């Protein structure tokens, strides 16, 4: 029996460990972030009152370790290993045939395939408990045997069949589109969390963005952060101003993105608001991702009491000591040099037809030096084809964000050229490249000749094509 378990373990552990580490690294990162564990009585008592509280609490404890991909992969493997050992015991007790020992990999394979769909580890723990119960029952109800008799072909069946089963289950897991999409989205979320904007733009290419509305928003955010939005945004499949964030969002993906957008814009209250929303949407009512983000927002805001509160809360988990320690220096700095913030009450979360434009307009009014906000606002106006409002706002933005610039971003130039059809003087005030002027002239000629499709085909990514798409 020990030999069988050792042999099966030698097959299962490295395969599954590598599978999780390579295929679902970002999903495990996400699972840790959306979970929460604390020894604080408020949290423990709350979990105890909820259905399946004990399992959830145990799962929350284990999920803390998923902060490290290696630890997460090991734990994911451990659950499958427990199921495998228990299945080995059951097979041994019930069948007593060495040549059928591979049968224990049938439940293991099913478990692995299902495990990839779980977004927490409650289900895995339930599987483990059920497997242990089955093993105990089989041991209690059957007589002890002397062990397997190694028969011919045993090694092939004990190694190759389980390997094939595992490979099949892994393939099934990876063939499920939802699993693949989830991993890709979580990867992008992770890069955004770490402000790795270059990497986001490397993996979310325009053609990818055009097909994926979630990652399109991250690409637009990355471009806004890099100051490249007005140069590129229409190449990424933008269809309207709503593509820049998740308006009125009440789901995890949307709140997470909105919190990151607010962080980038320096809207600390909104970052905290969206993070609280994310908390309430997480399975346990709190999430490490939100708690960490809220802590950092308060630190950036110079709010010592609340930053300290959340740091102390995080210290009541198992794995956040070093994370908190990494913020202590900032805290000490704040104590020595308190930050005085203007009380700028900027309305956010507008509930009208144009929430992005309303929010950005309020922010821009309060902080006209916020170039990122200005770019999102102007590009949002262009995306919603509001040329009049663009014409009104552009001079203000130009004066503050682009004073004396020889070269304007592409889409601002193209919008100015459109405006120049009615107001030619506008080109005297702003520098528009001769190359762009020529191109617009050709585009206009084609349009004037009624060759709309030819015009759009000649300048597929241009603002002109976008603006006159309906013609």
């Amino acid at each position, binding site marked *: 029996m020990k030999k069988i378990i050792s042999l099966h373990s030698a097959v299962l552990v490295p395969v599954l460990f590598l599978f999780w580490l390579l295929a679902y690294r970002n999903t495990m990162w996400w699972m840790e972030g959306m979970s929460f564990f604390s020894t*604080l*009585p*408020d*949290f423990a008592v*709350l979990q105890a*009152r*909820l259905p399946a509280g004990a399992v959830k609490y145990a799962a929350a404890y284990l999920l803390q370790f998923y902060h490290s991909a290696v630890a997460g992969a090991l734990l994911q493997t451990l659950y499958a290993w427990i199921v495998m050992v228990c299945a080995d015991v059951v097979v041994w007790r019930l069948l007593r045939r060495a040549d059928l020992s591979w049968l224990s990999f049938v439940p293991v394979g099913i478990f692995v395939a299902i495990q990839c769909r779980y977004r927490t580890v409650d289900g895995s723990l339930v599987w483990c408990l059920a497997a242990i119960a089955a093993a105990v029952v089989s041991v209690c109800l059957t007589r002890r045997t002397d062990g397997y008799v190694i028969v011919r072909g045993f090694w092939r069946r004990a190694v190759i069949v389980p390997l094939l089963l595992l490979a099949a289950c892994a393939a099934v897991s990876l063939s499920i589109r939802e699993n693949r999409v989830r991993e890709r989205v979580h990867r992008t979320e992770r890069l955004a969390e770490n402000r790795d904007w270059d990497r986001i733009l490397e993996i979310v290419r325009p053609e990818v963005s055009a097909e994926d509305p979630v990652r399109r928003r991250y690409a637009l955010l990355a471009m806004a952060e890099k100051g490249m939005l007005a140069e590129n945004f229409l190449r990424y499949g933008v269809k309207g101003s709503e593509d820049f964030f998740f308006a009125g969002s*009440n789901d995890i993906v949307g709140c997470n993105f909105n919190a990151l957008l*607010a962080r980038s*814009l320096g*809207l*600390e*209250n*909104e970052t*905290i*608001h969206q993070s*609280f*929303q994310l*908390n*309430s*949407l*997480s399975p*346990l*009512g*709190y999430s490490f991702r939100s708690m960490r983000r809220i802590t950092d927002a308060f630190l950036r*805001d110079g*709010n010592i*009491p*609340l930053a300290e*509160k959340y740091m*102390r*809360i995080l210290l*009541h988990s198992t794995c956040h000591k070093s994370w908190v320690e990494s913020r202590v220096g900032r805290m000490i700095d704040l104590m020595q040099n308190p930050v005085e*913030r*203007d*009380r*700028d*009450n*900027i*309305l*956010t*979360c507008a509930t009208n037809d144009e929430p992005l434009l309303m*929010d950005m307009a*309020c*922010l821009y009014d*309060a*902080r006209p030096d916020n170039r990122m906000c200005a770019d999102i606002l102007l590009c949002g106006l262009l995306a919603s084809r509001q040329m009049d409002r663009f014409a009104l706002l552009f001079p203000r933005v130009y004066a503050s964000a682009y004073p004396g610039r020889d070269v304007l971003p592409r889409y601002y130039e193209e919008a100015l050229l459109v405006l120049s059809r009615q107001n030619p003087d506008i080109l005297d005030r702003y520098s528009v490249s001769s190359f762009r002027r020529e191109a617009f002239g050709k585009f206009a000629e084609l349009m004037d000749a009624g060759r709309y499709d030819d015009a759009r085909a000649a300048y597929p990514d241009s603002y002109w094509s976008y603006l006159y798409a309906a013609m």
Partner: protein
Amino acid sequence: MHILTRIFVIAALVFLCACSDGAATVGGKSDSPPPIFPDYVSVTVPCNIAPLNFSIRGTDRIRAEFAVSGSGRLKVEGRRGMVDIPVDEWRGLMAEAAGDSVRVTVSAWGALNPEGVEYSPFSFYVSRDSVDGWLAYRLIEPGYEGWMQMGIYQRDLSSFDEKVLVDNSVNGMGCVNCHSFAGYSPERMLFHARGEGGGTVFFEGGGVEKVDLAKVGPGKQGVYPMWSPDGRYVAFSSNSTFQSFFGGHGQVLEVYDQASDLMVYGVQTGEMAVDGRFQTEDRWETFPAWTPDGRSLVFCSAEPHSMPLEREKVHYDILRVGFDPETGTFGERVDTLYNARVSGGSASFPRVSPDGRFLMFARADYGTFPIWHDEADLAMIRLDDGVQVDVSALNSTLSESCHEWSSSGRWVVIGSRRLDGRYTRLFIAHVSPEGVCGKPFLLPQRDPEHNMWRLKSYNVPQFVRGEVRLPQRDLKNLFK
């Protein structure tokens, strides 16, 4: 040595160390009072309050000696910078000190003072006025839109016991809010349960009943309730409430109404009494409260404005209208008790003291929801002559808002965000018969740090004379 024997020896040593009777010597003295948290220096406390455990951050060992009339009565040693006073000994001390001051001498040892330091003693006064035994409140995330878990809880004020009265596990994680008790009775309580299958739950005579107020009278949902002292009526405001968020560095959010009216529900008749004067769109009426005789209602009233853009123009007055409990009708005369245009600001949460002499309310610069206004303070009017009484002792630089009188009128509980600006915590303050308010003290907790890391905010504190015993099974059945 056997492993168990070793463990026993070590445990015995630890126990002996923990029980050592103040053998530690103090290296020096300080002229300042100890920097204890919570701040209990010079407060007045009821004689039946739970032990005032406190901590000094940055210290390890701590010793507190409590003396009454010059003689030592209780000595407590603590570790981890915290004094955990045994409840039984504390009760003995309180019984002896009622009507007198307790002088506390604190010594502490820590990394900064390894030799120990004895701080200048401080005192607190133990009032003979006891406070109602229990306090009910809601615990909820501080504001924002969503939640997962919330509940209404009750706390034994003479100990640290906190119990769930009802939480939203009964109604599918919906909202439970706005509890009210009739005459501080633990046997008459109501609360709202929102969401699918929701309604207003009345607990009376040992049973629970769910009423959908939207199907009674004018067909409006009840929001802020106040049960009349005799239990025959519940005054409700019906509010269309919204909130706007602010993204920057200042105010977090603004909660506002876009319509609100008054109505009175007859508990025995099941009928809703309304008055056309308080059902119009010309004024917004909210936060009804009964006078102790149950013959008048005070409430807030404001001229409507376009919200949220004109939010700073909304200023609520406090009005009073008579009510005849025999006929269930409103009186003709409406008095203005607080005129916001004259006195400034905007009033919320009016509450009349049980002796009928004082009206306490929250005052912010504008709007109806002072909880998110840092400038919000408590204010008080003497009803005899309308003169404002100084209650600055209750206030801080951050928001003070929801408050409630004790049944004796000698205590008020107030919700304040003075600790961190965002999480409401409960403070209790003494009020003399002349309306002089003492320094508020933080609701005692076994671990004082509990106030800092509690994940939820307190809301709608209400004193109750005894423990509320809701029939939990019947309650769950209401929502099946």
